[in-house]
C-alpha cells in the first residue's frame, strides 16, 4: 500500500501542533493574573496608606505623645550630642553583653579620643525604660578600691556619669562605678547641710559591668520618667586610682551638665498605637530625623496568608514575578529605603515601598505618612505601616495556580482530544484510500462498497463523490464489457438475412461464376458467424458460471478423461499427463473445469508446432490443486498478467481463427469461480510457456 510522501508533516502531527496553540491560554492567564495582581497591590498599598493616614490623623498635633514632656518644645534640628534611642523589641538583660542589642546607626554614638580610647554608646527604650550600653575601649581599666569611700578622689577608678535634667528642671547626676565586674547600682552625690556631700544609692538606676578584651562595657537602665529634656553620658577614664581623669562623652566634662536632647517618645505612645494593632501589620512612629519613637510588632499572621508552598506554585511565581517583585533586599538597601521613606514623609508626602527578605523572604510593603502638627504645616513625626504582601500574593498565587492547573489540564485534554480526532481522521482517510484503491478490479468491476458513505461530514462527501465516480465508471466499463455481446446480438439479425438469402440462392439456377461468388459470400458469412460466436462467448461463460452448481468430484479423473480426448482431437500434438497417485477431490463444476482446460489446451496448441509435446500436470496439496499446461513455443510478452484479461491479444497465433483473447479470460473466470487464480510464466529454460491455474479445495 502506498503511504504517500512520508516527508513533511502528517495530518496527525499537524493537528497536534495546532492543539499546542492552546498553550497560549496559560500565557493569557498569566497576563491576566499579573494585571489582577497589580490592581490588588495598588489597592493594598492604597488601603495601607489610608490606614496609615487615619492613624497619623489621630496623632496629629499630639507632640506630647510623640515626644516626652517638654521635649517637643524646641524644634531645633538634631545636634551632635542628641541621644536618639530606638525602640527595642525585647527587654535586654542587664549583663553588659551586646548580643540582643539592635545595631542601628541612629542609636549608636561613637566618640574617640586622640590616644585611641573610644566610647560607643548605644541607647534604646523599652517599656518606659531607657537602656544604655557603653562600650569603652580603654588601654587601662581601673576599678575603684572596694574599701574606700566613693568621695575620696585618691581612690577613684573608671566610672560612668549619667546627667539629665529632671522634669522639674533641676540637674541630676548619677554615676556608675564598681570595684569589679558584675551588677551594680547607680549612685548619686547628695549635698546635705553644711555642704557635706554624701553618696546615696540611686535604686532606680541599675547596671552591669563587664570586662572586655580591650576595655569594658557598662549596660544600664534608667526610668524614662526620671529624665527631662536633656540627657548625657560621660566616661571618666583614669590610668591609675586617683589619677587625672580623662573624660569622654556627651556631657560638659567640667560642669557635668547635659546639653544634648533625649529624643524619645512618650511611654503613652505605645499604648496609643496598641489600639491600631492588627494582624500582620507593623506600626512604627519615627521622628523627623528617622529616630524610632515607638514600634508595634506585627501580631502573627493568620495561617491562611502564608505563602503557598510546593513546586508548581513556586515555578509559576518565578515565571510570573520576574523582576517586578523584589526577591531579596539587603540590609543596607532596606535601611536606605527606610531613610528615603522617612525623608519623603518628613517632607509631607505619603509614600509606599516594597522590600523583601525580612521575614522568610516575604515581600513587605511599607507605607510612610507624615504626622502633622495642629497647623497641618509642620511635620512632627513619621508613621510607618509595614505589612507583608503575602495577602495579595497569596490570593494571586492561589488564583493563578488554579488557573494554570486548569489551563494545563485543558491543554492536555485538548491535545489528547485532537490526537484522538486526528488519529480517527487519519484512519478514516486511510480506510477510504484503501477502499478506493481496491474498489475497481482490473476488469473494471466495482469490488467493494466504499466506507464512510453514510458519514455526514466532508469525508462522507468525499466518499460519496468517490462512490458516484466509481459507479459511473463501473457503469461505463459494464457497458464496454457487454458491448461485444450486444454487438453480436445486433449483427446477428442482418447476418441471418444474408445467410438465409444465400440458403435460398442455392436453390436458384446460377451460372458457374455466380456459384463461386455465392460460395465466397457463404464463406464470409460463416466467418462472420464465427466471430459473433466468439464475441458472445465470454457472456455465455459468465452466464454458465452464474448457473453452475458445485458438486464434489475427482479432478484427476476429469483431467485424465479430458487429456485422453485431446490426444485424439489434436492428433498433431503429443500430450503427456503428469498427475499424483490417489484421488484429488474438489468441490466445483467439472464441466467448467473441462471448459477451462479446453481453453488452456487451445492456447497451447495454437502456440506450439506440429509434433510438439504438451505437458498437462496436476499437483495436489491439502488446500487445493494446481493445473499446469506447458507448451514449447514463443515466449510471453512482458505484460504477462494482462493475458488473462478480457479482449487482450498481443500474441500472434499460428492459425487464422479469430482471436478475441477471450479464451484465457474465460480461464480466469473459471479459476475465480473455484476460488483460485491463473498465472502465466515462461519456462525456466525459455523453451516455452507454462500457464498454471490454482484451484481451492472448497470455494463455496
Amino acid at each position: 500500500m502506498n503511504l504517500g510522501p512520508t516527508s513533511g508533516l502528517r495530518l496527525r502531527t499537524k493537528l497536534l501542533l495546532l492543539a499546542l496553540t492552546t498553550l497560549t491560554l496559560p500565557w493569557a492567564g498569566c497576563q491576566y493574573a499579573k494585571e489582577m495582581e497589580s490592581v490588588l497591590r495598588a489597592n493594598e498599598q492604597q488601603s495601607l496608606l489610608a490606614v496609615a493616614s487615619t492613624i497619623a490623623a489621630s496623632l496629629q498635633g499630639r507632640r506630647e505623645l510623640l515626644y516626652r514632656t517638654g521635649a517637643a518644645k524646641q524644634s531645633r534640628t538634631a545636634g551632635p550630642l542628641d541621644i536618639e534611642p530606638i525602640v527595642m523589641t525585647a527587654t535586654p538583660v542587664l549583663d553588659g553583653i551586646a548580643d540582643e542589642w539592635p545595631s542601628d546607626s541612629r542609636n549608636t554614638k561613637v566618640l574617640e579620643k586622640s590616644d585611641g580610647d573610644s566610647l560607643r554608646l548605644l541607647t534604646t527604650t523599652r517599656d518606659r525604660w531607657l537602656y544604655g550600653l557603653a562600650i569603652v575601649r580603654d588601654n587601662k581599666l581601673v576599678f575603684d578600691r572596694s574599701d574606700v569611700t566613693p568621695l575620696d578622689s585618691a581612690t577613684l577608678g573608671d566610672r560612668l556619669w549619667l546627667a539629665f535634667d529632671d522634669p522639674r528642671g533641676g540637674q541630676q547626676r548619677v554615676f556608675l562605678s564598681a570595684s569589679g565586674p558584675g551588677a551594680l547600682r547607680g549612685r548619686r552625690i547628695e549635698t546635705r547641710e553644711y555642704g557635706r556631700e554624701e553618696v546615696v544609692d540611686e535604686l532606680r538606676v541599675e547596671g552591669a559591668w563587664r570586662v572586655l578584651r580591650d576595655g569594658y562595657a557598662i549596660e544600664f537602665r534608667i526610668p524614662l520618667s526620671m529624665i527631662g529634656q536633656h540627657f548625657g553620658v560621660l566616661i571618666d577614664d583614669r590610668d591609675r586610682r586617683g589619677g587625672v581623669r580623662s573624660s569622654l562623652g556627651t556631657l560638659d566634662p567640667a560642669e557635668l551638665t547635659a546639653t544634648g536632647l533625649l529624643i524619645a517618645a512618650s511611654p503613652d505612645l505605645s499604648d496609643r498605637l496598641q489600639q491600631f494593632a492588627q494582624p500582620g501589620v507593623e506600626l512604627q512612629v519615627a521622628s523627623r530625623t528617622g529616630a524610632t519613637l515607638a514600634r508595634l510588632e506585627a501580631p502573627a499572621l493568620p495561617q491562611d496568608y502564608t505563602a503557598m508552598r510546593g513546586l508548581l506554585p513556586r515555578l509559576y511565581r518565578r515565571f510570573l514575578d520576574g523582576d517586578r517583585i523584589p526577591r531579596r533586599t539587603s540590609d543596607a538597601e532596606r535601611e536606605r529605603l527606610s531613610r528615603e521613606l522617612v525623608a519623603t514623609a518628613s517632607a509631607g508626602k505619603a509614600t509606599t515601598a516594597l522590600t523583601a527578605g525580612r521575614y522568610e523572604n516575604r515581600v513587605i510593603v511599607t507605607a510612610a505618612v507624615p504626622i502633622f502638627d495642629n497647623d497641618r504645616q509642620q511635620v512632627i513625626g513619621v508613621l510607618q505601616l509595614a505589612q507583608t504582601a503575602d495577602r495579595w500574593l497569596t490570593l494571586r498565587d492561589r488564583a493563578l495556580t488554579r488557573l494554570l492547573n486548569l489551563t494545563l489540564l485543558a491543554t492536555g485534554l485538548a491535545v489528547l482530544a485532537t490526537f484522538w480526532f486526528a488519529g480517527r481522521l487519519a484512519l478514516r482517510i486511510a480506510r477510504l484510500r484503501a477502499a478506493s484503491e481496491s474498489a475497481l478490479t482490473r476488469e473494471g468491476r466495482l469490488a467493494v462498497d466504499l466506507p464512510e458513505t453514510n458519514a455526514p461530514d466532508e469525508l462522507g462527501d468525499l466518499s460519496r463523490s468517490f462512490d458516484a465516480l466509481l459507479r459511473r465508471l463501473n457503469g461505463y466499463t459494464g457497458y464496454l464489457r457487454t458491448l461485444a455481446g450486444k454487438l453480436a446480438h445486433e449483427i446477428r439479425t442482418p447476418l441471418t438475412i444474408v445467410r438465409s438469402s444465400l440458403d435460398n440462392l442455392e436453390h436458384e439456377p446460377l451460372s458457374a461464376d455466380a456459384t463461386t461468388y455465392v460460395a465466397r459470400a457463404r464463406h464470409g458469412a460463416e466467418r462472420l458467424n464465427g466471430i459473433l460466436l466468439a464475441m458472445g462467448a465470454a457472456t455465455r461463460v459468465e452466464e454458465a458460471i452464474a448457473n453452475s452448481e458445485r458438486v464434489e468430484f475427482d479432478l484427476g479423473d476429469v483431467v485424465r478423461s479430458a487429456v485422453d480426448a485431446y490426444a485424439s482431437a489434436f492428433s498433431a500434438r503429443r500430450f503427456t499427463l503428469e498427475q499424483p497417485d490417489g484421488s484429488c477431490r474438489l468441490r466445483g463444476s467439472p464441466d467448467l473445469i473441462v471448459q477451462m482446460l479446453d481453453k488452456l489446451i487451445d492456447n497451447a496448441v495454437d502456440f506450439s508446432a506440429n509434433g510438439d509435446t504438451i505437458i498437462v500436470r496436476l499437483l495436489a496439496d491439502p488446500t487445493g490443486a494446481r493445473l499446469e499446461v506447458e507448451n514449447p513455443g514463443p515466449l510471453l510478452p512482458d505484460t504477462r498478467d494482462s493475458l488473462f484479461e478480457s479482449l487482450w491479444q498481443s500474441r500472434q497465433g499460428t492459425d487464422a481463427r479469430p482471436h478475441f483473447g477471450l479464451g484465457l479470460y474465460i480461464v480466469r473466470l473459471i479459476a475465480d469461480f473455484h476460488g483460485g487464480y491463473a498465472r502465466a510464466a515462461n519456462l525456466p529454460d525459455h523453451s516455452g510457456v507454462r500457464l498454471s491455474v490454482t484451484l481451492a479445495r472448497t470455494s463455496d
Partner: protein
Amino acid sequence: MKKQIAIVEDEPAIRDNYAAAFAREGYAVRTFANRREAMTAFATRLPDLAVIDISLEHEPEGGFDLCRDLRSLSPELPIIFLTARDSELDAVSGLRLGADDFLTKDLSLGHLIARVNALFRRVDALRRPTEDQQIIRRGALTIDAERMAVEWQGQVVLLSLTEFWIVHALGKHPGHVKNRQQLMDAANVVLDDNTITSHVKRIRRKFQVIDPSFDAIQTVYGMGYRWVE
C-alpha cells in the same frame, strides 16, 4: 392439402426468406409482422405449425405472449421459437411455455426445414397407431422415434425436439460416447459447447423429475456423453 406454416417475424427480409424456403418445400406459408395481426388471423384459422420470433416490433417479449395465446387455442400445435438472442433464460422461458423447439437465427435454412419436417412427422405419427419397430427400449427408457416421444419407467418425459434428438442419439447406442459435434448433427443444430452442456443438464433434470436417482447420461469429460444402462 398443403400444410400451412405461420411465420411471425418483424424483420421482413428474414420473414420473406423463410417463407420462400418453406414454400419451396411445398408448404403453404402465411407471414405476420406482429402479434396483433397473427392473433387476428389465428382466430379464424389455426396454422399447422408456427415459427415465432420472440421480440416483435415494440414488444420485446411479444413472442412469448403469442405462444401462450396460441397454446391456449391448440395444445398440440407445434411451435418453434426463433430468436436472435441466445440466452439461457430465454430458452428456458420459451420451452416452459410449451414451445416444441427453441432455435437461434444462425441456424441454416436446411436445418430449420429438417426440424419443421420432423415436427410434422411427429404430428402425423401421433395420429397413426404405434408401429413397434420404431420403438427403442433400453431398460427403463422407451423411445418412440416416430412420435418423438420418450418414456422413463413408463412415464412420458416431455422433451423439446432438440432434446429428443439428443436423447435419441445417446439412447440408440448405449455405452457409445457421442461427442458434441455428433449430438449437434443429430439434433440438426449448430450450438456452442455451453449450449450443449445446458441442453444435457436440462434433459437430466427432466428425467430426474420422474426418477430422482436418474444418472443414465454420463459425462465423459473432454469427449462427450454416453448412455449407461
